[in-house]
């Protein structure tokens, strides 16, 4: 079985600043990293490969400028077998839908992997749209916010997913898309041998022709959404402080609030 992991290059969020005028991220001079949620997805793929003997190959896919190959090298250092970069000037300006379309084209060229694992969202755009749109475009189910995989065979997958009020066990036939929203906080560090392998690996680069994309479905042309304006969010909440002097009053107030707003059945 072939497994694909979709990864994205994003700016380091602990170093970025916001342009006060435009409300957008100032990316100049900011180091790019592998999106942490994508790394969780990669961890899941690697652990599945170890646990189930049926996975023959993990391929990391990304769409981006030539420099995005670095996140593919990091993915290989962390356990992917190869990397595919979808890169073409015609891809620029793509929104979620056009990105999902382009990635879907890339996946087809690699023999339609049976399992596609994605991070739940990227930490720069935070849209969380691409995995669901790939599932729509490719006609396969999506299992979101997966915490654990209980069973994996050539035909089906059984997972535990996290939802607002708890967890749920989901089962579907393959191929399918899986999204991952959590993982170990202590990130793995590859060995020298792993990094050497990552740098010696050839990255497959697909332009729009090699990926078999329609000109009208990629980049800005293929993007049905437009960002009209971005405004920074401001906190509007009021805060009432209680300290040693009026602690009991505060405690009572919180107790009453919780009792009045408890919609769970006791």
């Amino acid at each position, binding site marked *: 079985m072939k497994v694909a992991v979709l990864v994205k290059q994003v700016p380091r969020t602990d170093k970025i600043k916001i342009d006060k005028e435009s409300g957008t991220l100032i990316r100049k001079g900011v180091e790019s*990293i592998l999106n942490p949620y994508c790394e969780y997805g990669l961890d899941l793929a690697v652990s599945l490969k170890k646990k189930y003997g049926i996975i023959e190959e993990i391929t990391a896919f990304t769409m981006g400028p030539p420099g995005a190959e670095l996140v593919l090298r990091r993915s290989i250092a962390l356990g992917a077998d190869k990397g595919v970069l979808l890169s073409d000037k015609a891809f620029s300006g793509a929104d979620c839908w056009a990105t999902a379309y382009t990635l879907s084209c890339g996946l087809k060229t690699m023999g339609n992997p049976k399992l596609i694992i994605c991070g739940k969202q990227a930490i720069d755009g935070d849209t969380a749209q691409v995995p669901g749109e790939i599932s729509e475009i490719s006609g396969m189910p999506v299992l979101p916010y997966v915490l654990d995989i209980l069973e994996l065979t050539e035909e089906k997958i059984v997972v535990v997913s996290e939802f607002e009020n708890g967890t749920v066990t989901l089962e579907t036939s393959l191929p399918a898309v899986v999204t991952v929203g959590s993982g170990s906080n202590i*990130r793995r*560090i*590859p060995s*020298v*041998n792993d990094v050497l392998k990552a740098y010696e690996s050839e990255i497959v680069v697909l332009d729009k022709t090699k990926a078999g994309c329609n000109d009208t479905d990629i980049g800005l042309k293929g993007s049905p959404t437009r960002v009209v304006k971005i405004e920074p969010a401001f906190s509007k909440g009021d805060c009432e402080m209680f300290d040693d002097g009026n602690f009991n009053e505060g405690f009572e107030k919180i107790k009453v609030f919780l009792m009045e707003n408890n919609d769970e059945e006791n």
Partner: protein
Amino acid sequence: MVEIKTIQKRTVKADDVYLCDESKMPGGKAEEVFFPKNIEELSSLAAHFYSLKKPYTVFGRGTGITGASVPLEGAVISLEKMNKINDLAHCKQTGKPFLKAESGVTLTEIKTSLERFFYPVDPTEMSASIGGTVVTNASGACSFKYGATRKWIKSLKIVLPDGSVERIERGKYFADNEGIIHFSGKKIKVPQYKMPECKNAAGLYSCPGMDLIDLFIGSEGILGIVGEVEIWLEKKFPAVSFIAFFEDEQKAVDFVGILRNSDPKPEFIEYVDRLGLKMLKEKSAQDPASLNIPPLPENSEGGIFFDTAYNEGNIIEVLEKTNEIMSQATGFTGSFCAWENIEKERIKFFRHALPETVNSFISEIKREYPDIHKLGTDIAVPHENFNEMNLFSKNTIGRSGLKFVSFGHIGDSHIHFNIIPQNYDELEEGKKIYGILAAKAVELGGTVSAEHGIGKLKRKYLEIMYGSKGIEEMRKVKKCLDPEFLLNRGNMFEPGERS
């Protein structure tokens, strides 16, 4: 001359920050602290104290750990307002880049002012002032490749104890055949002892035909006040960070012999011993987020950290060579490797976590025994004698039953043994052992202080190194430039010793 009353000053309070430095040495005493804004004000203050025969201590940023900036009497001059950095310039003859900075500028300020270049002296404590690092000939991990501060000083502007200002450019004043340097109307007879053939920050510099600038570098401020510094810079480049783990400490030490001669030469080579790794593993087990590091390879009882620079085209070559020497090394158990900054920062944090962890242990013990402090050696020896020194230190401390870890700059055959006394009896026992180790280092041609200096806390070890004759030679240099011993009393020599 600037009128003294126009120079910013204030009275020193009890528990004032200017009465102590990172050494936590108790007993600091001073009346007032002055804050000169430029070299003119600094010179006026020196001349003023000279005319009054008033002793004073110069305070950089208080990051030293030998008490060199702890005042014993008189006044304090803080250099923190002398914090201007000039624009980057290039040497007219060689084209090499350099930077001019006032002595109160911190290493962090220098680092952030540069884009394409860097200052290769990295003594870890980046809040140190450039002036402070000059007078201790500071080094740190990267001295393995780049040498200590001495090598990177283009010129110094010095305020002499009488208030006169002299600019000393390297290559301008040399000792003659009789060991005399003619400078500022004085004949300075430089010490004649032989310096150890390893990294060293103990005692005044000495070598036949020496350059005057080297006398001031590493002088711990006893000969003059550094007012302004010109430092050479290097071009920045990317580097890969590695940790190699080994099944025992000796195999880790043996690997350093291979690594030291590898090509390209690593930026630094650092060591952590079995007990250090154990301490870090325990800390990580208690609170995984505190170190942010995954489990170490199994059976790892010694670790070597190193960074290797690469060009855009040769990262694979660097990785291949490193992989080859690691996989061929005896007792190699595994490695960590990082090339992205965010990941390299994790490895650097892990490397620096051990001294921090030791300090947190000491803080715990201090709750019951407030005067307890760690005993950290600063010994270095020539490479050929490192194994003997290392084994002697481990066995000597080990036999005593005292808790200790060792880590540090093994590339320079310079590792710090940190003894962690649990009570006052152990503290006294540790001090005795410290003296035994210092004597052994000197016997093996090494130094009692490779990077921290002597200051006020390690004076007795200086005599072990240079003997009473050597101390006398140093004292004569001091007397030639500062006849009343006004400047930084108590550093290197006992405060009462003036002739």
